[in-house]
């Protein structure tokens, strides 16, 4: 029963996602200056927003873990960090593809861009830490500490890059937004949010199952069935 509901929900979300993509790619008008290139925005903006959401969830889960240790918050932290990495990497790549025809360059040392790039490297380090520590309890505590350090760094990175850039002209990006575009963007943000939630739940379950496997007494000891593991 539950399985059927889950499949139905995933199918519904896939339909919403397909509709949002159609709204963004076909229904919404092309931009007067940028033309069809602007349509990247309908994927780029939601993805970067989901990355920020994932980072926030990661931070909250990590703080909660340090106050009250639980495999659930640890699993949420792991799932959200990985999603932040995935959504951030794709979102940034899309931004670079958009930047080439619009700004003339793939990359600019803009405070927001730079902050996201540093954040991605920091989360890559976080994921590496999770792989390199075998004891699950130590891993959870150390990952939580690392997550807090990364989250605290975000505003400092932003301001430092902003000051660092202040000697140069900051690229301006005036945008008059058509109501149809706002509509398309809202649909896409909702669709990406739903996909994000599906990913988060799926990844959370995997992480929790992995933690359970690590921490429970081996099944051979319990006398049920032999564990086939290397």
């Amino acid at each position: 029963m539950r399985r059927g509901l889950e499949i139905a929900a995933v199918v519904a979300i896939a339909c919403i996602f397909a509709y949002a993509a159609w709204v963004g790619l076909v229904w919404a008008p092309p931009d007067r200056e940028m033309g069809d290139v602007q349509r990247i925005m309908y994927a780029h903006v939601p993805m970067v927003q989901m990355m920020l959401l994932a980072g926030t969830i990661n931070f909250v889960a990590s703080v909660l873990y340090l106050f009250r240790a639980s495999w659930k918050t640890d699993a949420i932290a792991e799932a959200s960090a990985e999603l932040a990495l995935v959504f951030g990497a794709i979102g940034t790549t899309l931004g670079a593809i958009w930047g080439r025809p619009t700004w003339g360059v793939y990359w600019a040392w803009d405070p927001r861009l730079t902050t996201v790039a540093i954040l991605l490297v920091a989360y890559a380090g976080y994921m590496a830490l999770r792989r390199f520590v075998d004891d699950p309890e130590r891993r959870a505590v150390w990952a939580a500490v690392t997550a807090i350090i990364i989250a605290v760094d975000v505003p400092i990175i932003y301001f430092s890059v902003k000051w660092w850039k202040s000697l140069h002209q900051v690229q301006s990006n005036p945008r008059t937004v058509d109501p149809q575009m706002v509509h398309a963007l809202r649909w896409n943000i909702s669709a990406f949010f739903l996909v994000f939630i599906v990913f988060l739940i799926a990844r959370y379950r995997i992480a929790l199952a992995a933690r359970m496997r690590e921490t429970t007494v081996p099944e051979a000891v319990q006398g049920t069935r032999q564990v086939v593991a290397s």
Partner: protein
Amino acid sequence: MRRPGVLASTWVLFRKDLLLEWRSRARINALVFFSLATLLLFSFALGPDTALLRRGAGGYLWLALLLSSVLALGESFRVERENSSLEGLRLVPVDTRAIFLAKGIANALLLAALGLLLVPVLVALLDVRIVLPWERLLTIIGLGCLAIAAPGTLYGAIASHARARDVLLPLLLFPILIPALVAAAKGTALVFEGDPMGQLPSWIALLGGFDIIYWGLGVVLFPRVIEE
């Protein structure tokens, strides 16, 4: 028996770290030659254009310090791990925050000494001139090394107990330190080239803010990092 206060234990542990360092002197020797080699490599990588090298001198100084710091921080917890000294320290009725403060300050001091040693080398090698008063440079080196040492000590403790620790420490530390690197390199460059726009105070303030935040976080989080 009364439990010793945080400051008193920090002082004792700090002296212990310095004494260990002084007895072997292996780490400081290795660091000096490593950082000198790094500075030389920058010059060779960029070619013999003196003006270009001089303009980048502030950045090279901090990159050399940053790369050396990975060796220094890794070593600072290797000695504790080797004979399970950290376990011993934890058994003593001493506030664990004192361990962080002592190790952090010892690491910062070591890096600052290294930084001071590299400045005359920069003057000789890259023809750098110190335009602003000396105290400004001392402030930047001091604050910058404190900025590397606080998250560095925390991550050093973590990485020393993980697999592939030599890879892990820079992977965790470098992204976090970028604001401190920007501020320190920029501030040092201003000391070398003059500061007509009066930007130096804001960079020093950024470094100071970074220090306050990360030393505070370190004191709060370190006891959790080394607990069993």
